């Protein structure tokens, strides 16, 4: 089996593609199905004959159809047909069109590795050209710093106005006021903070304690603005973290040059996708099998297009990650895959006690006070319930020591798969409640929606 049905479902760009894929997942729609250690392929007979390929090495895929959805229904169908019956694609020699496709992919990967190597040792680069490029970059950075400073000062004035005039009527004024501030921050080239401000509209009016939660956000944002005013005095890792929080991108070159390289066998423990307007974002949480370190791969893609890296919950991938510069060091990018991914069949490293989990989170907050969330694995926990009527958090997890944490919601699948027995849970923690994202049960890691 290449991927399980559950994983294929998560890979699908939308429900319609999955449904269409399922319809095509029958042998009668296919010819020349085949597989080897590298790939899986087949020809799907639709309105035309489409050549469909899947690369086992990194779960990459391609189809000759003109669909703008990634993966298209033909790729999904190919994976489904093999998930249903592993013998459906018998072992055979790769046809020419598969050989060519794989060769192109391997050449591209090689080029990427060479480029990383070259960036690390730029022996033949003209010093004058470098100086010129650096001067241009510094000028652009200075311009951006200025714009961001102006934008943050305007935001701070607005925060003060809010506190002076009171938060009472915000819920009645609608989400427009936050959207307006977010738009101004985008114009001021601080898109990261803009996203955070835009989400404040979800807080207003949501639950009896929304004033307290909103005030906390306003206060932390004010602290961020104060930190920005002194950014030149901050240690470099904190300044880096702050800039990334405001929306600075770390360039590929800088990441290659400065990002810490970490080799491990990475378990994909959970994944969250969000869509805003026409842009999709994906947070994939990884836990290293050997060192137990946590990393997060953040990707963006236009709606209906695929993310650059294919990472599937429940798979384990030997890889070199490059960590983004900063104090927390959670965000990372896959620099190189060191073998094909394999299904996870053993427990992942994590915290056996909730108190250890909270301590680790506190350390992260101390390093980066604007950290919004962190994830990891809590081991051997059980579901618990707060039966108090109107409880804000009716569902909890509890560890063997009796410590407990509230769940944002109870995924029905989590309850069904665990049945009141202990389990290992991957979750995002925002300091208030847990968002379950993955689960280890029956020797399988599964994603939670």
């Amino acid at each position: 089996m290449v991927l399980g049905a559950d994983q294929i479902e998560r890979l699908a760009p939308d429900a319609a593609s999955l449904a269409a894929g399922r319809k095509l997942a029958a042998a009668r729609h296919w010819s020349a199905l085949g597989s080897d250690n590298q790939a899986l392929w087949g020809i799907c007979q639709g309105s035309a004959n489409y050549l469909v390929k899947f690369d086992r090495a990194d779960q990459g895929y391609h189809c000759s159809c003109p669909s703008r959805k990634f993966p298209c229904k033909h790729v999904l169908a190919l994976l489904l047909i093999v998930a249903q019956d592993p013998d459906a694609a018998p072992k055979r020699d790769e046809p020419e069109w598969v050989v060519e496709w794989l060769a192109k992919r391997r050449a591209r990967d090689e080029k990427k590795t060479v480029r990383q190597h070259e960036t690390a040792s730029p022996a033949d680069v003209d010093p004058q050209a470098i100086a010129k490029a650096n001067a241009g970059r510094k000028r652009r950075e200075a311009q951006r710093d200025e714009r961001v400073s102006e934008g943050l000062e305007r935001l701070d004035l607005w925060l003060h106005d809010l506190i002076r005039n009171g938060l009472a009527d915000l819920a009645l004024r609608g989400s427009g006021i936050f959207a307006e501030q977010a738009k101004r921050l985008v114009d001021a080239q601080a898109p990261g903070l803009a996203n955070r401000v835009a989400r404040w509209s979800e807080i207003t009016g949501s639950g009896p304690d929304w004033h307290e939660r909103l005030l906390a956000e306003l206060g932390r944002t004010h602290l961020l603005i104060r930190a920005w005013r002194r950014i030149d005095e901050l240690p470099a890792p904190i300044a880096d973290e702050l800039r990334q929080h405001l929306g600075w991108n770390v360039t590929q070159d800088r990441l290659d040059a400065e990002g810490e390289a970490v080799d491990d066998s990475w378990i994909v423990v959970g994944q969250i996708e969000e869509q805003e307007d026409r842009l999709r974002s994906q947070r994939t949480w990884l836990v290293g099998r050997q060192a137990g370190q946590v990393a997060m791969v953040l990707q963006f893609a236009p709606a209906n297009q695929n993310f650059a890296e294919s990472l599937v919950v429940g798979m384990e991938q030997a890889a070199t990650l490059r960590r983004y510069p900063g104090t927390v060091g959670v965000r990372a990018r896959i620099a190189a895959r060191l073998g094909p991914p394999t299904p996870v069949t053993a427990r992942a490293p994590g915290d056996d006690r909730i108190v250890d989990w909270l301590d680790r989170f506190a350390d992260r907050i101390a390093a980066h006070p604007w950290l919004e969330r962190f994830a990891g694995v809590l081991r051997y926990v059980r579901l618990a319930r707060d039966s108090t009527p109107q409880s804000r958090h009716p569902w909890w997890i509890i560890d063997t020591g009796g410590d407990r944490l509230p769940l944002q919601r109870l995924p029905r699948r989590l309850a069904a798969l665990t049945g009141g027995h202990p389990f290992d849970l991957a979750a995002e923690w925002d300091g208030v409640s847990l968002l379950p994202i993955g689960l280890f049960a029956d020797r399988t890691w599964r994603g939670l929606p």
Partner: protein
Amino acid sequence: MNDLARTALLGTGRSGLPSDLAAHPTDRLSSAVPTDSVETQVLIRAGVRSIWEQAGRHFETEVEPLSADEVDPRSPGSAQVAAILNEVASDSQANDPTLMIELMHSLAAHERTLPYESLPDALEAQAPALRDAILPVLGTRGVWLAHLDPRWSWAIRGTATDDADPFGGWDEGTIDERCAMLERGRAIDPAAARERLAATLRSERADHRAKLIERLAIGLSIDDEPLLEELLDDRSSAVRERASALLGRLPASRLVGRAIERGAALLVIEPVDGAERLVASPPTETTKELKRDGLPDPFASGSGGRGALLVAMLAQVPPSIWCERFGRSPSDLIERIREDRFADAVLAGWCQGTLRFAERESRCDVWVEPLWRELQRVLGDGRSSRQYRLSESAVELFGRLAPAQRIAELGRLIDEPFRSELPIGPLLALLERPWSSATIERLLRRLIDDLQGARWEGFAVTASWLPITAIATPVSLIPEIIARLSRVELRPNDYRAVNAIRAIERFVTSLDRRLRLVRALTNQNDPMPPSSETSEPN
């Protein structure tokens, strides 16, 4: 709400910064930051407090760990089974639950329970027939899960774990929840449930009263008569109709007694043209007494007149009464009414009476076959008798024929489907499953003939049989059927041909899903034990 949030809520412009703010561990840190305004002070304090709280949160909330489910002697279906069930559940074109019901039967036949991950979707099932099919394969995990959500309480009814008061939460429940409680209560103790209902029934809204009374059909007995008789005087016509319908199903009820008495004047034997004929004389108005017994007033509504009233009145009389009264067989009586102007109405009334009382009075069975034959004759004549719903009655009568007779009758109808107004699809649903290879062959031949001959009008009829055929086909025949259909060449050069291709694809997809499920169940190795295999931390 904390004092800082209260200050921000009102606005410092009005309240300023209160001098008596409660002490907080972060105050010293906050006050060390130089500030130039009250607003800045509030923002700094709020920010620092928030970071402090986020980093050091510790929860003391009293929570109760959920007890683990009990071990089920049966294994749950594998991930492959779950994937197939998910496919069927998420198929937007398949809003008919028949295939899912069949898959549930397959699970039960292989002594498997539903895969754990399929349980939440299964518990969301709404169709009563699907719920009935799901219950045997829920397993202990499913029953455990059903306790977590009140909407899933239907799955707990009558189980060993169902030790709670079935009427717990009656006063606060929605109407659907109370209906579910009443169903559960009637299944456990009909008399106690009736008493519970009677205690609050008067205070319910009319539409709620009607819904609740319908539930008395579960465990219905003559003991329910006093309450139902009382409800015949209810203000709501919907309530009266339901009460009379339930009383009408009890041969010993006073309502049926009154119907039998009234029946004496409805049908008489008189000499007509030298032969003894049955003559129907329905009333010319609906009296107050008739209305009280749930009979319609077609004169007021202009829907059917005397004929419609006659049908309703005869339907309340056990048909065995007519044999006793006239000393003649059902076939004889049917023949003697043929020439009467109300013949179709009498036939419809007898059909409805037979179907209503057949379950409780075995003497009614002798009417089934003669009525079925007569309906074949009437419907085969091309006489449109839709106003008396004779086709529907025919379908129900077909369901009461002996199994072998059903197969024989249906074979005849499949070969000549257009001679009758009788719809074949509903009759197919009443055949015992799986069907014989002879029946399948007959249907398949008809289907392929229509396709190859591009007889689209015929195919439209045949295609309506496909959903039921997909679930009634023996699994062993499925590969051959798919192969035969794949050899039929169809060109999508006409919208009817396109529709036909789609219908065949849906049919093949359903067959394929059944085949894969059975293969997955047959090949399934014993799954891993439940998640308790997650070992304890060292």
